[in-house]
């Protein structure tokens, strides 16, 4: 049985029609749809177990705390982290990266260097820009080759004695490139730099194992992997998190408080001030359960097959340019393309008329757009519920685009 045949009945939204056509949702890289089990786990939590976590000494408070902390254990196992203390819940990938840029850069000295890449999402660029301006740090970017890969020779030239942080995407949200994180983390460590990885596009599609990746921090968003919006995951190696000064204060992140000072709480709560996203954590547990039941190997295989067909199909259409590495094996489940003579927003609007939802624009990666020499691209992305027939529908629709305006 094909994976999508198994999964499609689990996604209520797929029964919708758009402009008279069955929905063809090819925008999971922006946010995936949710299986019924995630939606129901969250409703059930609100209907049966909701209370604030950690200091509510009553039955509901205890249930909510148990569910919230169980999500942490689930995430720890899902990404192969060594300890539960290494899993911090945030509000999303951007939030996690902002937290890290704030906290990590605070201890740096003027002239220290941050290395990003030319293919970063603005989420993994702007927070470092802001920190660099504030702390008078130097910001440099690893260039992207014509094949859409990181230029690792340039990386070696850019890594130096003053490099403190290397911040990069695991999978590019535009090119789909899977970056060699383990190798880059190894080279960064040689010069004493830490590695911060934006895993937003990788976590939904790849089997993750922090012990193999060897990065210092890894950040991702459950809403792109069948889970709810409003919660993010920040993984950090314990010895680094222990030394990291929290930058946000409030309830829960403290152990003892006096008027003029406070003692921080243990990990991971030290970085979780205020009421956390509890229902969202419950939804995240259900999303991970769903993905693990399918098996991440199988998920990756399914999406790779769709990506391979989309790549070869789009490249064969006259006037269509496909961006990123040519082989599906080097990519995540996104395919960005341009149609000669058509603006990406027109491409997206025309496809929407056929019920096909794709992303269009700069994909929050303006420096990369400049590097590619385009104002934007259209992007199709795939998930566990995407069918081979939907990819064929996309290809047929794109083939007819140039005559439709």
């Amino acid at each position: 049985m094909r994976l999508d045949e198994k999964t499609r009945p689990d996604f209520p939204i797929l029964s919708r029609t758009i402009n008279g056509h069955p929905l063809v949702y090819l925008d999971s890289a922006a946010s995936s749809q949710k299986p019924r089990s995630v939606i129901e786990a969250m409703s059930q939590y609100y209907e049966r177990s909701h209370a604030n976590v950690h200091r509510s000494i009553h039955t509901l408070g205890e249930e909510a705390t148990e569910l919230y902390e169980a999500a942490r254990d689930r995430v720890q196992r899902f990404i192969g982290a060594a300890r539960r203390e290494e899993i911090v819940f945030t509000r999303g990938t951007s939030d996690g990266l902002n937290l890290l840029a704030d906290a990590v850069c605070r201890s740096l000295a003027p002239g220290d260097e941050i290395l990003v890449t030319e293919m970063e999402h603005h989420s993994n660029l702007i927070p470092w820009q802001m920190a660099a301006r504030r702390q008078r740090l130097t910001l440099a970017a690893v260039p992207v080759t014509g094949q859409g890969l990181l230029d690792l020779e340039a990386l070696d030239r850019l890594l130096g004695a003053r490099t403190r942080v290397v911040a990069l995407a695991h999978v590019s949200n535009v090119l789909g490139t899977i970056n060699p994180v383990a190798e880059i983390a190894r080279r960064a460590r040689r010069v004493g730099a830490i590695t911060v990885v934006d895993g937003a596009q990788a976590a939904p599609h790849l089997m993750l194992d922090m012990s193999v990746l060897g990065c210092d921090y890894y950040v991702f968003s459950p809403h792109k992997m069948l889970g709810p919006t409003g919660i993010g995951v920040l993984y950090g190696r314990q010895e680094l998190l222990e030394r990291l000064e929290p930058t946000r204060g409030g309830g829960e992140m403290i152990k003892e408080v006096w008027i003029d000072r406070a003692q921080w709480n243990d990990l991971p709560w030290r970085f979780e001030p205020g009421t956390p996203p509890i229902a969202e954590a419950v939804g995240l547990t259900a999303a991970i359960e769903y993905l693990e039941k399918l098996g991440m190997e199988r998920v990756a295989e399914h999406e790779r097959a769709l990506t391979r067909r989309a790549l070869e199909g789009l490249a064969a259409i006259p006037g269509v340019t496909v961006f990123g590495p040519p082989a599906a094996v080097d990519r995540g489940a996104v395919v960005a393309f341009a149609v000669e003579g058509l603006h990406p927003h027109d491409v997206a609007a025309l496809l929407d008329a056929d019920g096909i939802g794709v992303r269009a624009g700069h994909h929050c990666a303006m420096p990369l757009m400049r590097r590619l020499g385009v104002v934007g691209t259209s992007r199709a992305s795939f998930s566990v519920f995407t069918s081979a027939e939907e990819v064929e529908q996309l290809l047929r629709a794109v083939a007819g685009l140039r005559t439709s305006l």
Partner: protein
Amino acid sequence: MTVQAGPYSDAIRARWRQPRFRGELPGANAVAEDVNPLCGDRIRLMLSVGDGRVAAARFAGDSCAICAASADVLAELVTGRSVAEARRLDAADLLTVLQADIRPTRMRCVTLPLSVLGLALDGDGAR
């Protein structure tokens, strides 16, 4: 004439395929350019203004069909009008000609040329 379903009316398609006012305007004395940060659309408007009146208008740019059609209509509408009249043109005037069902997410595609017009008329040339 009724508004057609979807953003791409016959008027937009026609103006996208065969714009009437796309091109350079040598001697233009009121020129401005702006971008839509959402999508990167870029429109440049060139006007010849004399005696308080817009004598000629042309546009250039890299944009979606809706934005280009809107710029084309705007160039047509401002031609021959006084600066004061040109300033009073709004999105409704453009939509009357474009005859399209524009959803809020694409409205900025229609209005970008209008804000570029404002910038051009605020410049020294139009005074």
